[in-house]
């Protein structure tokens, strides 16, 4: 494999301008992350301390093996929702190492409204359990939640992918032999009570831990029974009488120690054997990525420059280098793991779409995971391209991609507009992990384009109805659309709505993907099988 030669001019004015711009974006992201992770009202911090409870991040730190990485997912989920009342969507999810096992962690955050689940909390927990199912990752639940946030119950309870899905996913995990452990630190009320109940193992902390379908106030209201939380669903009741939990723990530290010992009993994972070589770092510095990504969303850049800063030794075996050049396809190693990279270098034409479809099939044939690097404004439009079948060629790429049996990973590097998002394994296509860079923008089309389109539609409508054409009306359609888009196309909005598994600093891409690929190997490969390609 040959080493990619960078053509980046690191002393150019453009590089420096891009660098400053993207660094500033990353700093804003880091500040927000710091804030949602650690800023809590004193009142809440004090309340937890008085109960002898740790903050959820301290629990996680004590649970994980020392000096091992933790890949936190969706740290800025719900960050633009509920007026910021639900930092990180009131829960923490991520992949870490416990007693030598890769596990998915789900931790409630009792420092926010008693750990109550907002609609986006439910979405985040469901997603984390989806990841566990897809990648056969054991799950450790750190339970401490008051249950669903009642004022918003209609947005978190009734539908297919709402609260019920958490417990459905738990059952499916167990059915597939994927282990789950619950550590009950606080209250698990109502639906939340099923999390330990549906776990294979459950530990409960004496004094503060409790599991019940209805808490004392609801019981009082329903039947008049007057009972304390501990008597109703505490450690003694559940480990001696009901059997809902298995191990009583004297303290939170004790529960964590028992939990670590339980995980240590589990059989080692049976990972499928991927082609691998000893890893070596990229030849070029990762932080030069800041200087590559243009500050203007419209500006094109060579995705090979990004690849050279992510993959081992900056080496890429490029497939069909002289054909369909707006899509870069090739084999590389990432932390030693062989991957097939599909990266945008411009608009998708007929030839690039066909090349993409063929390369995806090659990766499936060779059991090589796929990495999609998105920067796409779509498939080429116009009569000439339609006549040559751009729609059916794009459909072939979508077919090959959607039916892939190898694990897929997507990084949203710059822009993701229109059908290009589909072909390049956007959120709907079950990428095992999908990460977003802070500069990223996403939408069915760019804001400016949507504004132009809607203004044009409005103009035609007025003409058709023979109404007077008022420039102000047209302009306001234009500016209102642009304004709405401006917020909704951003990476922050995207991650707030959980359209991804989190924003990452571009310089962390290699490490995040390394953990993601390693996790994906736990799930056995299914059979290669496609639908009908339209020729």
């Amino acid at each position: 494999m040959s080493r990619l030669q960078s053509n980046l001019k690191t002393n150019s004015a453009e590089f420096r301008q891009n660098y400053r711009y993207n660094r500033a974006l990353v700093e804003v992201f880091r500040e927000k992350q710091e804030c949602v992770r650690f800023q809590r009202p004193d009142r809440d911090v004090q309340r937890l301390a008085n109960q002898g409870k740790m903050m959820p991040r301290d629990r996680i730190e004590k649970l994980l093996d020392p000096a091992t990485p933790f890949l936190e997912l969706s740290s800025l989920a719900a960050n633009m929702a509920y007026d910021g009342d639900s930092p990180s969507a009131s829960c923490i999810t991520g992949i870490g190492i416990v007693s030598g096992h890769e596990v998915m962690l789900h931790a409630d955050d009792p420092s926010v409204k008693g750990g109550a689940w907002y609609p986006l909390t439910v979405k985040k927990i469901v997603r984390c359990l989806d990841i566990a199912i897809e990648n056969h990752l054991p799950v450790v639940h750190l339970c401490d939640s008051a249950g669903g946030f009642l004022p918003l119950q209609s947005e978190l309870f009734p539908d297919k992918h709402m609260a019920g899905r958490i417990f459905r996913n738990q059952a499916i995990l167990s059915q597939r032999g994927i282990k789950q452990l619950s550590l009950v630190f606080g209250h698990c009320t109502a639906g939340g009570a099923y999390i330990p109940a549906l776990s294979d193992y459950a530990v409960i902390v004496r004094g503060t831990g409790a599991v019940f379908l209805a808490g004392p106030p609801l019981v009082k209201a329903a039947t008049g029974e007057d009972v304390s939380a501990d008597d109703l669903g505490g450690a003694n009741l559940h480990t001696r009488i009901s059997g809902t939990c298995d191990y009583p723990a004297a303290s939170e530290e004790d529960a964590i120690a028992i939990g670590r010992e339980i995980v240590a009993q589990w059989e080692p994972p049976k990972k499928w054997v991927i082609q691998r070589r000893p890893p070596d770092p990229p030849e070029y510095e990762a932080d030069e990525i800041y200087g590559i990504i243009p500050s203007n969303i419209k500006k094109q850049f060579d995705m090979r420059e990004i690849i050279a800063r992510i993959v081992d030794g900056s080496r890429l075996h490029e497939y069909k280098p002289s054909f369909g050049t707006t899509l870069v396809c090739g084999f590389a190693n990432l932390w030693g793991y062989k991957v097939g990279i599909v990266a945008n270098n411009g608009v998708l034409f007929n030839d690039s779409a066909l090349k993409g479809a063929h390369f995806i099939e090659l990766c499936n044939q060779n059991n090589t995971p796929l990495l999609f690097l998105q920067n796409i404004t779509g498939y080429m439009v116009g009569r000439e391209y339609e006549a040559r079948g751009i729609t059916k060629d794009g459909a072939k790429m979508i077919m090959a991609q959607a039916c892939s049996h190898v694990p897929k990973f997507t990084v949203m590097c710059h822009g993701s507009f229109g059908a290009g998002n589909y072909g390049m394994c956007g959120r709907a296509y079950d990428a095992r992990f999908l990460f977003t860079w802070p500069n990223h923008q996403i939408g069915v089309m760019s804001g400016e384009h949507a504004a132009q389109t809607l203004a044009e539609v409005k103009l035609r409508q007025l003409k058709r109805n023979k109404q007077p054409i008022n420039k102000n009306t047209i302009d306001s359609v234009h500016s209102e659309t642009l304004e709405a888009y401006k917020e909704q196309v951003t990476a922050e909005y995207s991650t707030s709505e959980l359209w991804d598994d989190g924003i990452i600093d571009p310089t962390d891409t290699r490490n995040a993907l390394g953990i993601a690929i390693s996790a994906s190997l736990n799930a056995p490969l299914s059979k290669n099988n496609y639908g009908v390609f339209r020729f």
Partner: protein
Amino acid sequence: MSIELSTMGQSYEIDVLERHPSLVCAIDKRSVIVTDIQLRSKDRSSITIDGKPYEVWCAIDDNTAWIHIEGRVYSVEIHNRLERLTLNKEDSDEVRSDMPGTVVEIHTSQGETVATGDPLMTIESMKMQVILSAPRNGTIDRIHYKTSNTFDKGAVLVSLAAVSHHGQEK
């Protein structure tokens, strides 16, 4: 797959014809038989080429091999074929666009001397801006469009002055 090597300013194409019982290679179509390849240590080996024995020391740094043989050191560059294919762009006098679009900005002017890779023009198509750069060293002969002009697919956007066979620009 053939390998392309260059040393002392000359490049050679090498094809492996046989591996057993002896290694037979074609170097620019001339075949060479290599026997008795013995690795003495990590970087030292003895080999017999067309019946003549040699002691060889070799160090490899990335795409360059440093070979010490009969008291001389040769630096040999190993070219990857894929890389060569991608680099093998047409040495054209004309800069064209693969798709219809609009001129956003012109970075050069008529008569200006440019080097390979210098930005010539920024164009926009499908909401994406692309910088077209000089395919080779030369002088700008003509810029065919003005800023905000639209053009069709395949249109010539910038022409470089043609180069005569003696390497002089006409």
